[in-house]
């Protein structure tokens, strides 16, 4: 049997998180708002109104273009893309056609085998979104809120080779968008949208076969599933001696099936022409440099640096650079701590990240500052508190915002290492539990841990557990 490889390209639309829309001053994000509540004469296309370009859109797009290593164009133009649809108020979409904001560029994907897949993009352009239509009880309802919401469109070259790589691309892109602060990049909320072009060919071949386009995929898992299904289908078809036709397919999330939407016999003619209501967009060096001043170190660069500078394993570095504020948190904590960065990493991956996940916050939203974390680690290192106190302290600091040392003092959490105090409690525990003492003496020595636990409970967790164990063993002998 022939071995096949998939050839996949992704067309992505990214909703920029500007406050206002691209050509008017309406609020851009309407996720929580009722239909048609964020519209005005401009974005709903009333007669005689004109678009005025929102500079914040350009600035966010330029930042993204730079992060994608694309070449930002000093001159770019807006064009009208003409088609009739009820949710397209003007009958044309203002987009960029032959003179986009940026050209070229790529995103590198680290693969599980340690290699890297470079996924190229041809161009990056900005455009306005259209509205939403839905059919309800035989009526067609239109919500124009989304009209004029700023989008960036990026189309990749057919550089992806598996469903998993396609998913990886979206994960890395989402990470980058949030890192840059240019988009909320939530696929479920359509901040990040993706259509996939899929074809197969014998592994190692250098030609392209006819492709199908998959639309309506609303999550990264759905992209992975839909592409995997389509690759399987294409292999089956080819193995059965049938030809792949250039269909447009729709992903049905509920059934997990692809449905044919239409055959792609002819390309639509959008009759693009220059938007006469907008001037050529000039991005001069001063403006560009002003924007790029805010370009942060990118996630993959930081990941690499964490491995080199802090000696972190790839796994740790990857996790800690998953989100920008988390990586900044880590670095601040390492700096404040001054000790082994791996120790900080462990505490962050085990405890801090659990706290973030449980409360769905980002590191920047924690009351527990990196300095607090460092202080707790130092208290632990100096033997002032034990590990379980330290873990409890993380939550207490985060809840109160108080300094760890303050809480330790207020609540008397410092570890008790006074032999006589612990001995007294140990004796109490043994007196109160004669049955367990008998079992222990009868050979069930694993009960020692249970006795230690009882001592710790009585002492509010403040006892030095190793000392308690030592005394208990001595008393039970």
């Amino acid at each position, binding site marked *: 049997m022939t071995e096949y490889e998939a050839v996949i390209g992704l067309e992505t639309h990214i909703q920029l998180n500007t406050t206002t829309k691209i050509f008017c001053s309406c609020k851009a994000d309407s996720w929580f708002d009722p239909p048609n509540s964020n519209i005005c004469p401009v974005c709903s*296309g*009333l*007669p*005689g109104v004109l*678009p005025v370009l929102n500079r914040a859109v350009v600035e966010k797009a330029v930042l993204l273009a730079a992060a994608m290593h694309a070449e930002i164009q000093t001159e770019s133009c807006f064009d009208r893309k*003409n088609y009739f649809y009820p949710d397209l*108020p003007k*009958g044309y979409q203002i987009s960029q056609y032959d003179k986009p904001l940026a050209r070229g560029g790529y995103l590198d994907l680290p693969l599980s085998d340690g290699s890297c897949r470079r996924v190229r993009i041809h161009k990056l352009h900005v455009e306005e979104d259209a509205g939403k239509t839905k059919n309800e009880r035989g009526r067609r309802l239109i919500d124009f809120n989304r009209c004029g919401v700023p989008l960036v469109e990026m189309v990749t070259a057919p550089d992806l080779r598996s469903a998993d790589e396609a998913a990886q691309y979206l994960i890395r892109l989402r990470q980058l968008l949030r890192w840059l602060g240019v988009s909320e990049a939530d696929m479920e909320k359509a901040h990040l949208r993706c259509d996939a072009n899929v074809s197969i060919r014998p592994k190692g071949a250098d030609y392209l076969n006819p492709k199908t386009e998959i639309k309506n995929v609303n999550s990264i898992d759905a992209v992975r599933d839909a592409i995997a299904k389509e690759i399987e289908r294409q292999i089956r078809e080819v193995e059965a001696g049938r030809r792949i036709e250039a269909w447009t397919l729709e992903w049905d999330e509920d059934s997990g099936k692809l449905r044919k939407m239409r055959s792609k016999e002819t390309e639509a003619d959008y009759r693009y*022409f220059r938007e006469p209501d907008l001037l050529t967009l000039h991005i001069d060096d001063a403006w560009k440099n002003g924007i790029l001043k805010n370009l942060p170190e990118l996630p993959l660069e930081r990941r690499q640096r964490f491995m080199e500078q802090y000696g972190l394993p790839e796994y740790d570095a990857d996790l800690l650079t998953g989100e920008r504020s988390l990586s900044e948190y880590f670095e601040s904590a390492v700096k404040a701590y001054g000790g082994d960065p791996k120790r900080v990493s462990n505490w962050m991956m085990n405890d801090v990240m659990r706290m973030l996940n449980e409360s769905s916050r980002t590191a920047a939203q924690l009351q527990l500052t990196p300095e607090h974390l460092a202080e707790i680690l130092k208290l632990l290192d100096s033997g002032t508190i034990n590990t379980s106190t330290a873990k409890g302290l993380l939550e207490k600091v985060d809840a109160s915002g108080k300094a760890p040392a303050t809480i330790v003092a207020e609540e008397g959490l410092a570890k008790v290492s006074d032999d006589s105090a612990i001995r007294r409690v140990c004796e109490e525990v043994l007196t109160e539990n004669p049955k367990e003492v008998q079992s222990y003496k009868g050979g069930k020595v694993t009960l020692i841990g249970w006795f230690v636990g009882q001592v710790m409970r009585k002492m509010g967790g403040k006892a030095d557990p190793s000392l308690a164990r030592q005394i208990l063993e001595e008393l039970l002998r």
Partner: protein
Amino acid sequence: MNDTRDLTNLTVTDALAALRSGELSCTELVRAFLERIERLEPRLHAFITLTPELALRQAAAADRQYTRARKSGESTPPLLGIPLAVKDLLALAGVRCTCGSRILDNFVPPYSATVVQRLLDAGVVVLGKTNTDEFAMGSSTENSAYGVTRNPWNVKHVPGGSSGGSAAAVAARMTPAALGTDTGGSVRQPASFCGVTGLKPTYGRVSRFGLVAYGSSLDTVGVFARTAADVALLFSHMAGFDPRDATSVDFPLPLPCLDGKTNLKDVRIGVPQEYFIEGIQPEVEGAVKAAITHLEKLGAVVLPISLPHTEYALPVYYLIAPAEASANLARYDGVRFGPRVEAENILDLFCNTRGQLFGAEVKRRIMLGTYALSAGYYDAYYGQAQKVRTLIKQDFEKAFELVDVIAAPVAPSTAFKIGEHADDPLAMYLEDIFTLPANLAGVPGLAFPVGFDYQGLPVGMQLMGAPFGEEMLLRLAHVYQQTTTWHLQTPTGVD
């Protein structure tokens, strides 16, 4: 001043002086015009919508303001109490805006065009919305879905177009001034046909916000009045940068007043040979040449010049304007505003609404434009037209290295008869051959009366200037009007 006839004869400048002195009340003035409109409207049909209640309310407020100001000595807005008619292609908040089309029959904009708002802020009183060819597509006002406007000089003739309602209303003294729009000659040609003064400004000098788009890269808002001095005054309150129009230009405001000097020494007037072609009505050529000679006698230097790409202006315009229009008019789909022709599905709803509610000329231009932009034809038509447009623009740039203004006829003939070109769109398009180049080049143009033909119909002359050269055009026309009487003639046929 009780004789209404006298009041409607007042120019803007004179009326303003009378209002300020208290010799005349704004209510009196507005009533005089409303009465005249009521009397003449059945014969001329210059308006689509009249706004008498609004006008009288504004007039009463203006009178109160004048009274207060006379007591307190405070200043009043520069055009307080001046009646104005507005072409029905410009939005006035709360008043129906049809654009001469059934497809906007019930459309009431919630906003005012920037230029309208500026004039309202300056104190004008709006009498109504004037008739226009549907979406400004036409040269006779015959393409209005609300009936044809008639020329006050001879009601069997057209007033020109597309701002025919505004031009006719000014000529017939139904208003002292009116706004128009000019995409290919729609202010200048009707000004010429009706014997009034009409300015098409430099592209970008007056905001297009609230002007319902036809050919966006060509559309301008202009103004009609009976004298160049009035046009200059109004224009000074129309121009200026608008943050709501990205193509508007931040250029110093024009001066509201023209000096009384009549010496044109050092002014170089270019006469382009391409505008005096075979087929031009001899009386038009004669009157324009006589006017040029008149300016020469006042000290101007007249030089023959060439604008070699003039002959391409017509085909270039009829590719670019319809192409832009095909997109600009796509929004009239019956979905969000305007009447809707119901159907079983959305495609039929679009087709029925547009098919039944757009007029023939609008559909013709939408089809022309759609074709010119289509895949496989773009390069040969729209793309090529853009290149030739650049050449036409360069013709003007070169010419303005040699001369200060260009003098030419406005149209090849005087006002033609209603129905004369009804079955021949090409003959209608030819009406615009002398006015299209200024739109393609984005330069200002001014039309004003310089004579009459044997039928007693006015002949206009056109002056074109370098970008932002409106003041030069207005000054020349003003000097001409200080020394001639053509602009003082009144059409008597309608009374």
